[in-house]
C-alpha cells in the first residue's frame, strides 16, 4: 500500500514553512543570547576615550547617551530589532556606518575565500578518499593515511604562517590584503590574476587544513560500504571496477558525507577567521576581532547573526540533499 504521491508533493512546502519558523526562532534566540553576553562583558566602546585626559567625562557621557548606550538592556534590544527590520542591523561606532553595509562587503570577501576552499577541498578529497578506500592496506593507502595524519597534526595557525613565510621568502606572491594597490588601474584580466594571487595563500591553508578530515571520512564511509554484500554481488554480475566504486559504492556511502558537507557549509562564514587574520584577508574574521576588542557591540552581534544564518542554511541544505540522495529517507517502506 503506497500513500498518494500528491501529498508528498504538497508537503515540502509545509516542511519549509516549519523550517522557516524554526529558523526565525533560532535567530531570535541567538540574537538575545549574543546581546546578553556582549552587554555583560565589561566596558564599552567609549572606554578608550575615558583614558584620554583631553576628553572630558561629560563628552564621553554625552557620546554614550547619543548612541543609546546608557539605556537599559531591553530598550537597547528593541531598538536593535527595529534597526534590523529597517535593514540597518545596528550601527558600528568604529566605522561610523550601519552594520549591514559593513557586513555585506566583508562577508562577500569571506565567502569568496571559503566557497573556493570548500569546493577545492571536496573536489580533491572525494576522489582520493574513494581511491585509497579501494586500495585499503596497500602502499598508497598507507602513504595517504600517514600524510593525512601529519597534516592533521599541524595546527591551522602553523600552516598559515608557514605558507606566508614561504611566500615572503620566495617573493612568489603578493602578501596581505585582497588586492594590490592600484587594483583599479589594472585591466580586467590582470585584476583577476591579482585577486587569484592574493587568494592562493589563504585558500591553500584552508584546503590543507580541511583535507585530512574530509579524506578520512570519505575513506571510512567507503570502506564500510565496500564490505557490503551488494558490492560483491554486483562484482559477480560483471560490473566494472570503476563503476562499482563510483556508481554503486559512493552513492551508498554518501549519507555521512552529506551531513559533513552540511557542516562545511554551515562554517562558511565562521571557519576562516584565523586564516583571514594572518593572511590579512579583509573578511569577517579581522572585522570580528577588531569589534570584539573595541567593544563595537553591534558589529559583533551582526557577525554572530550572519554566522547563525549560515549555520541554519547549511543544516537545511544537508537535510534537503539527504532526501534527494537517499531514497530510503525519501520514500516509505513496503
Amino acid at each position, binding site marked *: 500500500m503506497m500513500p498518494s504521491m500528491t501529498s508528498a508533493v504538497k508537503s515540502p512546502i509545509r516542511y519549509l514553512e516549519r523550517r522557516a519558523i524554526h529558523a526565525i526562532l533560532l535567530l531570535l534566540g541567538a540574537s538575545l543570547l549574543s546581546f546578553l553576553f556582549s552587554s555583560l562583558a565589561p566596558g564599552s566602546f567609549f572606554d578608550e576615550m575615558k583614558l584620554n585626559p583631553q576628553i572630558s567625562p561629560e563628552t564621553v557621557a554625552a557620546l554614550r547617551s547619543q548612541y543609546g548606550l546608557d539605556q537599559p538592556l531591553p530598550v537597547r534590544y528593541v531598538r536593535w530589532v527595529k534597526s534590523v527590520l529597517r535593514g540597518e542591523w545596528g550601527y558600528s561606532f568604529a566605522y561610523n556606518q550601519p552594520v549591514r553595509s559593513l557586513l555585506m562587503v566583508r562577508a562577500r570577501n569571506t565567502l569568496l575565500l571559503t566557497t573556493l576552499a570548500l569546493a577545492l577541498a571536496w573536489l580533491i578529497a572525494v576522489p582520493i578518499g574513494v581511491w585509497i578506500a579501494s586500495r585499503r592496506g596497500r602502499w598508497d593507502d598507507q602513504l595517504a593515511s600517514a600524510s593525512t595524519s601529519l597534516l592533521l597534526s599541524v595546527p591551522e595557525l602553523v600552516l598559515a604562517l608557514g605558507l606566508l613565510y614561504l611566500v615572503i621568502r620566495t617573493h612568489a606572491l603578493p602578501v596581505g590584503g585582497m588586492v594590490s594597490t592600484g587594483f583599479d588601474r589594472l585591466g580586467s584580466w590582470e585584476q583577476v590574476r591579482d585577486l587569484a594571487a592574493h587568494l592562493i595563500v589563504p585558500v591553500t591553508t584552508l584546503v590543507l587544513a580541511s583535507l585530512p578530515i574530509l579524506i578520512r571520512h570519505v575513506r571510512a564511509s567507503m570502506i564500510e560500504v565496500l564490505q557490503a554484500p*551488494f558490492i560483491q554481488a*554486483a562484482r*559477480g*554480475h*560483471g560490473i566494472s571496477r570503476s563503476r562499482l566504486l563510483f556508481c554503486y559504492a559512493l552513492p551508498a556511502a554518501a549519507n555521512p558525507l552529506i551531513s559533513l558537507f552540511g557542516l562545511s557549509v554551515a562554517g562558511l562564514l565562521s571557519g576562516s577567521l584565523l586564516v583571514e587574520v594572518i593572511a590579512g584577508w579583509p573578511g569577517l574574521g579581522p572585522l570580528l576581532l577588531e569589534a570584539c576588542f573595541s567593544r563595537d557591540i553591534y558589529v559583533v552581534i551582526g557577525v554572530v547573526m550572519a554566522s547563525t544564518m549560515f549555520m541554519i542554511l547549511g543544516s537545511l541544505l544537508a537535510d534537503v540533499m539527504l532526501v534527494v540522495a537517499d531514497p*530510503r529517507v525519501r520514500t*516509505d517502506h513496503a
Partner: protein
Amino acid sequence: MSTPNSMPSTCASALLRVRGLTVNYDARNQQPVPALRQVDLEIAPGEIVGILGESGSGKSTLALSILGLLPESAQVEGSIFLEGENLSSMAESRWAAIRGARIAMIFQEPGLSLSPVMRAGDQIGEVIRAHRNGSSKQRKQEVQSALKDAGIADVERIYRAYPHQLSGGELHRVAIAQALVCRPALVIADEPTRSLDVTMQSEIQNALLDINRKYGSALLFITHNPALLAGFADRVLVMYAGRIVEAGPVAQMYRGPLHPYTRGLLQLVPEPVMHSGHISGFARRERLAAIPGSLTRFDPLGRGCAFEPRCSARTANCQIESPEEIAPEPDRRVSCFNYGN
C-alpha cells in the same frame, strides 16, 4: 570452442567441468584453512544439479570459485572449464565478461545483494550495460521482459522501486531477473530460499524451473534441505567438509542413499502422515533423528574420513584412512568404506 587451454573432453557436451578443485583460505599466522578438497564436478547444458550440504561444507566456496570471486588470499588449485575454456588462470578483465553473462549467481539474501540507493530496474539494467551496448530504451525493455520471466506481474512498480520498498518474495524475483537477463548458460543459486517462508520457497523454485525450461540455462542449486531437491534437481552432489561424498541422480539417491551422511540428512526431512493423498500430520517424535555433533574445523593434515566422528556406520579403518571415491553403479559415486550399510 577449442583453445590452447581446453582440455580434451571425453564428454564433449559438458558445460562446466571442475577437476581437482582445492581451495585453502589464508589465515594470518596460522595454517591455511581448507575449504575445498579435490572437488570434481560436471554440469551438462540445461541440467539441474543440486549441491547438498551444511554450513561449512564448502558449498559457498565452490560457488564463488566458479565465478572467480574468491578473495585474493585464497590458494586455489585444480581447474575449472566452461565450455572448454579454462577459467582457472584468467585475467580479471576476462572474468568480468563471463560473470553475469555466461555464469550468473543468485546470492543469498537478495535484500542485501542489491544496492539500497538504486532502483531495482536500474540495477538489472546495469548488468546488461556491463556486457552489451545498446540504447537505454532497449535495456528497459529487456529488463521488463526479464522481470516478467521471473514471475513478476506488476512490472512497472517493481522496475521503479527501491529494494527497501519490496517484499522478500519480490526481492528474490528481482535477483532472479538480474541473473537471467543476459541469458547465461549457467545459473548458480546459493541457498536462494533460506530466508523465505515455506510458501514462497515453491514459487521461487518454480520460477527457476521456468527459466531452465525456457532458456535452457543449467542450474546449480545449493541448499541444506534435501526436500527442496526432490522433484526439482536431476542430480545431487552431497558435500561434507569440502569434499563431495556422494553423487548421483536424485531419485536413485533418495531411494537408496549410499553414504551415511546422506542417509542422515534424508532422515531429517519430516515424515508426513498421509491420509487420502493429503498430509494429515507429521510423525511425532520424542526426539528428532539429528545427526550428532557438528561440522568442526577439520584438520588438513588429518587422515581418515572427516565425517567419522559423527558417523553411525563407522569402523576402525575410518579414522586412519580417507576413503577413495568409488562408482558402485554407473552414474553414482560415493566416498565411504561402508557405503550402503
